[in-house]
């Protein structure tokens, strides 16, 4: 962020406790000292007010980076985001692009209970006019944030408190990461694990566990949900013929549902098993530690879901498929269920262009 503040004097940061307190999660640490109170601005608890203010400043051409302490508090500011930031450009017939970034930690923390654990990507995705970006590594966080700040559109930039302590290499150069490109974090051929943000780290761990069982899972990190990289998504699933979508949301009308139905739309005929959609449970987030643990997707659940996609015979007789689970005792057998051992690469991805 400091680099962007340095680069463009019209970039400013605004939010609760971003300045003197150095940021609730210390993301904005040191920025006040370096750039002063004109550009790093503490606000009262007026989410709608300061967000609408940022939208107005963006209409004038400034580049606000709005921080919500957590995404949960953006609920108070949705009108400014949805009805104005995302629509002014359209409603004005192109006169007023709104270039701004809305940053916040999104998703569950640790025992923060029902009101403080929302994942809201699906809400933002529903409305056209914004990009929705969710990095999962330090390099992406930096590279995507830079791209977001330079983007002429409103960009919803959702971080994850569970990732703030993640260490990783960050390139020395500009390291811009373009918005809208998914990345294969691990190659595989038997099943694609589709995710983003914290869950893509979880998928990597699950893929390791699966590898021990001889299942080579491909891990696709979408990184951006709007725009979604349908090309890479289709290519990967067309290669593996199976997909597990993993997110940390509530299940209904979620990004996971959307990704799932997109996969069907893109590669219906390539699928050998129903897409497994793995989200949090369809409950408010409980406080109790043991319940919260059950709530969230984890390595074991991902492994189990991946196995399910593999544990089914495909019957080509035309009488429809049958669940194969009953006849398969162990996952070692699952290999048999796969067609051509995953070696079949249809040219669908290219066609989809």
């Amino acid at each position, binding site marked *: 962020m400091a680099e962007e503040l340095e680069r463009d004097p*019209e970039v*400013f940061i605004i939010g609760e406790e971003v300045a003197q307190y150095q940021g609730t999660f210390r993301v904005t640490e040191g920025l006040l000292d370096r750039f002063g109170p*004109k550009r790093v601005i503490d*606000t*009262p608890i*007026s989410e*709608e*007010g*300061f*967000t*609408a*203010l*940022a*939208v*107005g*400043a*963006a*209409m*004038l*051409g*400034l580049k606000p980076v709005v921080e919500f302490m957590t995404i949960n508090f953006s609920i108070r500011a949705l*009108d*400014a985001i949805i*009805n*104005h930031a995302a629509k*002014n*450009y*359209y*409603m*004005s*017939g*192109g*006169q*007023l*692009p709104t*270039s701004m970034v809305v940053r916040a930690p999104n998703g569950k923390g640790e025992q923060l209970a029902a009101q403080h654990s929302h994942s809201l990507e699906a809400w933002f995705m529903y409305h*056209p*006019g914004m*990009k929705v970006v969710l990095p999962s590594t330090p390099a992406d966080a930096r590279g995507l944030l830079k791209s977001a700040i330079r983007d*002429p*559109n409103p960009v919803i930039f959702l971080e994850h408190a569970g990732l703030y302590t993640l260490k990783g290499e960050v390139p020395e150069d500009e390291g811009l990461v373009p918005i809208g490109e998914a990345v294969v974090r691990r190659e595989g051929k038997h099943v694609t694990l589709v995710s983003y943000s914290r869950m893509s780290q979880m998928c990597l761990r699950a893929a390791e566990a699966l590898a021990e069982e001889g299942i080579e899972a491909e891990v696709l990190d979408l990184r951006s949900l709007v725009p979604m990289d349908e090309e890479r998504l289709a290519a990967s699933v067309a290669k593996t013929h199976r997909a597990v979508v993993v997110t940390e949301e509530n299940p209904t009308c979620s990004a996971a549902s959307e990704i799932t139905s997109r996969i069907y739309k893109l590669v219906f005929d390539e699928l050998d098993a129903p897409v497994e959609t793995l989200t949090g449970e369809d409950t408010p987030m409980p406080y109790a530690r043991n319940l919260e643990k059950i709530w969230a997707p984890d390595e074991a659940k991902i492994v189990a879901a991946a196995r399910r996609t593999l544990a089914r015979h495909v019957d080509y007789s035309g009488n429809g498929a049958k669940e194969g689970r009953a006849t398969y005792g162990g996952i070692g057998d699952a290999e048999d269920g796969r067609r051509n051992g995953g070696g079949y690469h249809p040219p669908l991805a290219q066609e989809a262009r």
Partner: protein
Amino acid sequence: MQLPVIEFPNTLKGLGQRSERLKIGVVRNGRTGLPQKFRCFAREPDIILPVILNPAVEGPARRSPGRTVARLTLTGPTGARRRTHLPVKGFLKDRMDTNEVLRIYRQMLVIRRFEDRSDIAYKLNKIGGYLHLYIGQEAVACGLISVLEKGDVVIDSYRDHGHFIACGGGINEAMAELYGKVTGCSRGKGGSMHLFSKEHGFYGGSGIVGAGIGMGAGLAFGLKYREEKKVCLCFFGDGACQTGLFHETMNLAALWELPIVFIIENNQYAMGTSVDRSSSEPELYKRAAGYQMHGERVDGMDLFTVREVAERVISQVRETSKPALLEVMTYRYRGHGAADGAKYRTPEEVEKWKTRDPIGRVEAWLLEQGAITEQDVERIHQEVHAEVEECLRFAEESPLPGEEELYAHILA
């Protein structure tokens, strides 16, 4: 309402330098006995003495030039105080450039005619969606916006035709927008509630009550950020004062000293709800105090009053970069939208307000002054009519947006 201009050089002695602004004093009008709070400051070479007026009382409106005596307590920059009383010697309208008055008069006429004709077009189903007319409130937008400088900006609610035009937006583009044509200011994609003209510093209408309040503060923030000494005028309704965003924004603007004038166009109703049914404090300007912000009530049916206050307050906001809240008392002659019969008001009430019609009064004054003749009036009306007919023709004949417009301007 008469706006007296007073010279009192003697009074200034001992109060500090002439060129500096005097602190506010409390004034009672000795003649009428009505307690009126005047706020008073010195300008070279005049002292402007505007009046906070409750239009329900209408006292000051009946005073005539030269007969008013005001008793003042003036406090100078040194803190020294002086009591005095002064005869009222002149009025803004005597001081204002006739051509400027004429220009605004004509603008108000254009707005009214534009609204009248769009109402008809709406009923003929040429215009869709909602249509909120500005008829009756013209002096508010025209008076305030007329004192803006280049680079100042305006933001508004959905009742936005008048402000768009007052900012200099073309009526062709406005009418074409209402018709949903691609030649509209928003390429037919916004409609009545979403007129925009970045070129003229008009940052649009919004269909969400109160939304412009927040964005207006953002515009002002931007102006200050760029150190431009420009101001933002932010127009909204009495109903919008009950939204949470009003409170959050007033606080932010005062706390951060943003150069913005919040203008409540108090037309007494939010749809069918009168102010006393929606506000625990019906004198809305009083809420400014809770933010340590300057607030005052203004008679919005009189162009000269509006202009007077606008000159004073806008220059004050520009100089100090401290926000102000104006509650401008006005009235919409028509229903809330073109489809609303407004049965919640009595015909008498509507008629009473019409007797104070802002256009009629300026017209009468121009005639009285001999600035124009009855023939001029006739001619101007005809010109305006022709102009508005032309914009209807323009809208009618313009092409619809092509299908490619559906997906244009979503992401830049």
